[in-house]
């Protein structure tokens, strides 16, 4: 400051780099405000790409399970995603229960109805008090393909569950990943049995 006021009229008053002058403060403040303004202006352009109100509102799907016999499976849509609902056989349940947690690639239940740290036991994967039902999002956790295993003739992998045709991941009869490259068990969506034969997903 002092330097620039004492400069002779012939000299251009240069701001001192060591000691921020008033001009520096104005420059930094103006630049800072411009950056904030740019950021605020940019935000709507970016945020408009997030799921919109109509996508968020497609929140629940109710499904009638009465026609699904033991050994059968159905696929319903929830939020644009396929939901696998399998009526498991005794053999499938016993197989899933006999697996030690240490043998699993992903030891976390990935069940939206339970705490995040819940272990991936069959009990934590299957329906609460309804272990013959398995409700999960039928999307491979590798790159989002729909695994095979819902229809009668489908390949089910070596663990009586699901087999992803894209990159060969295999899931067991509790939807837990047993052969990679998928890193996680298939996710369990939030759901609730509203009666013995009705389930509400979402």
């Amino acid at each position, binding site marked *: 400051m002092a330097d620039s006021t004492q400069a002779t009229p012939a000299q251009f008053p240069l701001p001192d780099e060591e000691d921020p002058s008033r001009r520096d403060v104005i420059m930094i403040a103006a630049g800072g405000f411009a950056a904030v303004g740019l950021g605020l202006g940019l935000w709507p352009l970016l945020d408009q790409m997030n799921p919109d109100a109509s996508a968020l509102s497609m929140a629940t799907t109710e499904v009638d399970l009465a026609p699904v016999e033991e050994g059968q499976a159905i696929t319903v849509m929830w939020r644009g995603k*396929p939901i696998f609902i399998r009526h498991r056989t005794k053999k499938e349940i016993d197989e899933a229960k006999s697996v030690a947690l240490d043998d699993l690639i992903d030891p976390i239940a990935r069940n939206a109805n339970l705490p995040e740290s819940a272990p991936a036991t069959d009990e934590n994967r299957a329906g609460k008090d309804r272990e013959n039902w398995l409700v999960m999002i039928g999307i491979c956790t590798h*790159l*989002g393909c*729909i695994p095979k295993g819902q229809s009668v003739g489908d390949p089910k992998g070596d663990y009586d569950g699901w087999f992803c*045709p*894209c990159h*060969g991941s295999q899931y067991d009869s509790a939807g837990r990943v047993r052969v990679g*490259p998928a890193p996680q068990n298939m996710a369990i969506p939030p759901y609730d049995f509203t009666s013995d034969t009705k389930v509400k997903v979402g």
Partner: protein
Amino acid sequence: MANPSTYEPSTGIEKWFDERLPIPRLMHDQFLVFPTPRNLNYWWTFGGILTFMLVSQIATGVVLAMNYVATPDHAFDSVEHIMRDVNWGWLLRYTHAVGASLFFLAAYVHSLRGLYYGSYKAPREVLWILGVLILLLMIATAFMGYSLVWGQMSFWAVTVITNLFSSLDAVVPGIGTRLVQWIWGGFAVGGPTLTRLYSLHYFFPFVIAGVVVLHIWALHIPGNNNPTGIDVKSPREAIPFHPYYTIKDGFALALFALFFAGFVFYAPNLLSHPDNYIPANPLQTPAHIVPEWYFLPFYAILRAIPSKLFGVAGLIGSIAILFFVPWLDTSRVRSTRYRPIYKWFFWAFVATCFVLGYLGSQPPDGVYLVLGRIFTAYYFLFFLLVMPVVGWIEKPKGLPGSITESVLGPGEAPTASPKRAPQRRAPEPVA
């Protein structure tokens, strides 16, 4: 730019423009008389071919957009409508679809030419980096364009590729999922995804055109490299771009156009996948998802690495590593012609790209997976180990004294014209 202007406005209107917006001067200096090494071979014609392909893609794309409907319910049908009902629609769509393939073919030839002749070395690093940037933009544009057909392959390609970003969940839990939902505009690939891909597919080609202008600008500062990799040392070693290279580029372009037309008229679907003629079905993944041929080597790299996060890192790294090539190659000699050891590694790299392309089209198990890992390893080792180490230990062959000498043999002054058959002698060793 690099060469002093020789433009003399000859008419009144040219003089009027020259004092206001000197576009005629720019065209004269940078296009007509631009000094170009006299020994460029046909591998140098792909720059012109690529410019033609970009213009062709934009022209056909703009008119296709007049007939295309970007909604999940109508996208697939509108493409068939273009094929069957729109006047010349079949020609426009096949030219655009086949054009994408041949655009990549030309871009890969152009890139490998730059890699072989060391066109990325000083003072052309920025030129090379802009080229890699164009390649990246082309990859993004082609991917988005392929999705617009909204067939089974389109839909599942979008699903698989956008899901790559969910691998970031392994770095910061939740961030990958948020990012993927932001890209989708929902909780799965759907209508909002299609419209944004369409919007960006229309936008990106103009970004490419802008970077191409920078690419040509960066070319015209140092001027062209040439097959010897030796700098132009006298004005007699350069010839004006027009008519010499307009003719040569034009001839090569005509041959390329014949090849292009052969695909469009006789095998328009040869390079694509029949599954994409099945409308998109979000509930059924095709048994075997494969990308278009030009992405197969990268797809093979993705699948060779048995970890989701590192697979994605390998995929991105396989292209990003090209940005660093000017500094990875430690050799002082530009052209691979004079590099007896590196030459073998270079052709092994080209072969690796072909093998990875084949492996990318095969199911990822058994021997294909093992081979995929071996060749992925070589792909990266070529850049990270071969380029620095071979450049360091290799003794290059003797370089000719000048471009003229490489063409006419030694003892010819650059001013003389050849009066007899060129002689040969052992080139001088590099100091």
